[in-house]
């Protein structure tokens, strides 16, 4: 390798590092939140009675984006009482969904949101899923619920297919 080639490679590396540093400096909170958004055992059970909950102890500043959650985290969060939300259409929900999932199809969110907000506390931990990685509805619904004031919104990107394929319990029936 010639000295010139080495210098070009070194400078390419410096440009890369400069971009990374710039990106991290503009998105520090986002990255920190993403990496610290993993499950903590102090997660409080959510409740569906809006006026009887205390703020979750782990909640610092409300996130401005949904936190991704993996299958193990979802299972643990559900065990401690997180609210699980199915963002798929009603008829798909009826064919099979996560146990106790609330149906809130993205396409009907405007109609259903009022009742949802009445029943689910803003401080609740929400886990939203749809049809897996290629499905953007859970993320979009998460953004919408954050706009509505929900503070702890997680997106289970593996969605129903991953849950079902892991052999975990599935419920059937219309919302």
């Amino acid at each position: 390798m010639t000295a010139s080639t080495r210098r070009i490679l070194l400078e390419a590396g410096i440009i890369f590092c400069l971009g990374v540093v710039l990106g991290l400096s503009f998105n520090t909170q986002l990255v920190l939140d993403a990496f610290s958004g993993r499950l903590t055992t102090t997660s409080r059970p959510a409740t569906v009675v809006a006026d009887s909950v205390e703020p979750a102890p782990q909640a610092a500043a409300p996130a401005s984006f949904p936190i991704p959650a993996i299958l193990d985290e979802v299972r643990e969060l559900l065990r401690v009482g997180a609210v699980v939300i199915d963002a798929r259409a009603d008829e798909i929900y009826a064919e099979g969904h996560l146990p106790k999932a609330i149906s809130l199809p993205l396409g009907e969110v405007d109609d259903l949101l009022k009742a949802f907000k009445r029943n689910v506390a803003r401080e609740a931990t929400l886990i939203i899923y749809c049809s897996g990685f290629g499905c953007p509805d859970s993320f979009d619904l998460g953004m919408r619920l954050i706009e509505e004031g929900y503070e702890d919104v997680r997106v289970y990107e593996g969605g129903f297919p991953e849950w079902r394929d892991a052999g975990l319990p599935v419920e059937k029936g219309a919302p």
Partner: protein
Amino acid sequence: MSRSGFYLYHICRLALGGMFLYAGGVKADNVVVFARDVANYQLLPYAWNYLVAATLPYVEAVAGLLLVFNRKVRPAALLLAILTFVFMLALASVVARGMEIDCGCFNPGQGHTSAVMALLRDVGILLLALLTLRLRSRMLS
């Protein structure tokens, strides 16, 4: 270098630089949605999708900016060629796994470019980056 080679170099540099400056800019403006596009590839642990989404657009934009301003052209073009090659590997894995996702190459969350189309486009971008690198080297020799 001939006059045509001189013009070709500047056209390649501006096209490559402008393209990545635009791609980086729109993604940097919508990092969260871009993170979802990265997650769709199912290649990284979840939180790392955010790390990539937070940094990659700025790498693209910095390299693109250097090319547009005709500074550090060879390192910038080389970096973009390497990045494009990495994107091609990721897209090839998507095709191999039979997944149907948006490539997330430009406007995150808008439109849909299949992995095969994106792969073909990346072949062109890789050639453009290598041509820019070669023309610049010839210019300096």
